[in-house]
């Protein structure tokens, strides 16, 4: 089967890969240490020494963007992991058992959906104080019902198929059927949803940091950079453009990658559909 690479998938993956590479590089090396304050150099525009200029503390913007991208990716990725690890089993349990179990899972879902990430974050911050970890947890909790719904929806449409009946006849219980037959077949749906939630997570992290509930200095994130630059936006708009555009580009890349993945993994949009039409 020749799976064609969708153009939007290529663009999305390349964009994501560039930002991810920048972020990972910051672990080992940044042009300047991000906590090096040098007030003599503050508000320098782009130059050969500082490609993206410096901020109001004289910190190198490129180094900040690299480190900030890493924070954003880590927070969003861990939030997606939290959502998947808890949400997917919940969704599969709901689909496989049905009845009162399903009712309970759906009501828990509705309850979680009723709290936007920002409210959860405020709650957690009020209890434990602000920080990147708490942002992860807040966004992760927001992700749980999303993954539970996708897993349940996908599993429900599979459940009526004959091979699930055959597995039941082979004496498999709900657990085994979920792990062996349902999970592998909803995996493609979950991967697509994960890319979309990753993009949303980066936006949510930026939002939380912007209102001061996320990453705290001296660490940095794209949202925190925006917040710092906002008060001097009229004087030095460049300082907001850099993190703002980075967020936009990352989110667009991830969304393109997600769309492309869905088109590639969805059999209805592929050549198989044509083969069936020709039958």
């Amino acid at each position: 089967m020749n799976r064609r690479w969708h153009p939007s998938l290529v663009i999305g993956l390349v964009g994501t890969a560039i930002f991810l590479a920048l972020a990972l590089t910051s672990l080992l090396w940044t042009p300047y240490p991000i906590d090096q304050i040098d007030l003599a150099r503050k508000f320098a525009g782009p130059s050969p020494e500082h490609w993206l200029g410096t901020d109001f503390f004289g910190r190198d913007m490129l180094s900040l963007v690299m480190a900030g991208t890493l924070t954003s990716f880590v927070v969003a990725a861990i939030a997606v992991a939290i959502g998947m690890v808890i949400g997917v089993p919940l969704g599969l349990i709901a689909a496989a058992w049905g009845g009162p179990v399903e009712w309970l899972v759906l009501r828990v879902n509705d309850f979680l959906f009723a709290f936007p990430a920002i409210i959860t974050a405020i709650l957690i911050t009020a209890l434990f104080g602000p920080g990147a970890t708490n942002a992860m947890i807040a966004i992760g909790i927001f992700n749980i019902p999303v993954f539970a719904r996708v897993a349940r929806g996908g599993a429900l449409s599979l459940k009526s198929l004959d091979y699930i009946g055959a597995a039941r006849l082979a004496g498999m219980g709900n657990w085994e059927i979920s792990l062996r037959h349902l999970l592998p077949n909803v995996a493609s749906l979950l991967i697509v949803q994960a890319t979309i939630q990753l993009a949303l997570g980066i936006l949510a992290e930026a939002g939380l940091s912007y209102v001061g509930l996320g990453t705290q200095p001296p660490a940095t994130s794209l949202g925190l950079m925006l917040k710092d630059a906002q008060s001097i936006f009229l004087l030095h708009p460049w300082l907001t453009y850099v993190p703002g555009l980075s967020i936009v580009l990352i989110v667009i890349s991830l969304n393109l990658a997600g769309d492309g993945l869905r088109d590639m993994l969805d059999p209805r949009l592929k050549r198989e559909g044509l083969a069936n039409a020709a039958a």
Partner: protein
Amino acid sequence: MPLLELDDLSVVFDGPPVLAGVSFALEKGERFGVIGESGSGKTMMALAIAGLLPEGARRGGAIAFDGQRLPEGERELARLRGRRIAMVFQEPLTALNPLMRVGAQIAEAIALSKTNASVEALLGEVGLDPVHARRYPHELSGGQRQRIMIAMALAGEPDLLIADEPTSALDLITQRTIIDLIAAVCDRRGMALIFVSHDLRAVAALCTRVLVLRQGAVMETGPATDVFAAPRAEYTRQLIAAARPTIGAVFALAGAPPLLEVRNLSRHFRQPGAAWFAPGQPMAAVNGVSFSVAASESVAIVGPSGCGKTTLARIIAGLDRATGGEMILDAGAHRPVHPYPRIKSGEIQWRGSGRTFPTGTYHGSNLPRALRRDISLVFQDPYGSFDPRLEVGRAVGEPLRLERGLAPADRLRRVSEAVQAVGLSPTLLGRYPHEFSGGQRQRLAIARALVTRPRLVILDEPVSALDVSLRGDVLALLNRLRADYGLAYVVISHDLDMVRAVSDRVLVMEKGKIVEEGRPAEIFAHPQHRLTRELLAARLPDVA
């Protein structure tokens, strides 16, 4: 001048053409049949004539309608489709708008084609009462929906009706009435017909000229009587042989012990009522059914769609639970017998003394785990019954988990035995389901049913999803396996000819009840119940 002329028509997607070099001419009022199995390109041909080819398809050759080339522009094509060419599709449920009353949909077709037909007249012409105009598609049966589709097709008073497998989603009795309806409508209106089907007998009943397609190429074309009486192409001969009903050997099973006893079994489904305090009348899918199956006996359950036969099969197999009655597996308790009795000269030889079978009373899904290996089910659809992400070897071996403590080597041996028994090579076991054809998949499904060495195999429409040319092979395989392994079958079907080929005893079912029972020969010769007579009358005449 012919009404429709195809000259060297071809349809190409990326890769090899799905249709190549098709030429024929159709006169006004002529009924033309296109015969082909899945993948033959017959649907693409129908779509090409109607100008409805899917995106990405390229058409070659020329199509002329009434002396004019088929227009290129969508507007002109749409006008042609509304007034001169009409189409009826296979699945009327997806072809109708579920949110519109069917009368409104017919009225829309009339308005678009700007004729002065009336909804009542059209409904009358297709044999429906005018009250049906106020119904929604889901409130109608499959046959009624197909009548609505035909009424919509007639709204534009077309010169040509293209019917693409219009009856293959319907049961036998309904199929016959729709075929008779199409014939009557064509005669009355002098309308030309292109009837696309895999069913030779349906084509033979309707058409005067036929074209046989295989993998996009024309095998043979000519007057229907000539083609069916003296087919020139080898492929046509195979199709005709496959369409001819075979009569299976009936085993004389004197003294075979009863294997399964079904006692007064019922399955009621709750139906939504008007309100929570006024619950609906429960619907009985299976209503007080009793019968028994002897060891190595093949019992067929026949009935129209919706008669409860599939529900019954699922309950016996242990997938669903009965709401009343019970089943007893192996009532002749604790007999030491060998798992594989041999049938020789009509007598069962119980060889040696193998394991002792437990006996059990159950109601469906509470079938004890120890007994599950004794009953297996072959599903109707060979495409849906395998997990697309599991190698077939593992799928076929899945039921072996019912046998505790089986060493991996034994497991492998059992799987390859089962696969060899259905005539496939064990070297194929590492492949994935999509690499197999429909017929091979159905063989694999049978292998999966055999792998636990069951005594009772339930076959739910085992060949209805297969191409005609494969059906004979699978039926012969089923008969051979029964002879080799002394299996008992419960065959669920709506197809009397298939039933005659594989069963010793026939139960006719209607609305959840068994209305007639007997040997196939008796039932065919002297049907007693009204439904049995209808089923027999609905059979289309044999070809040639």
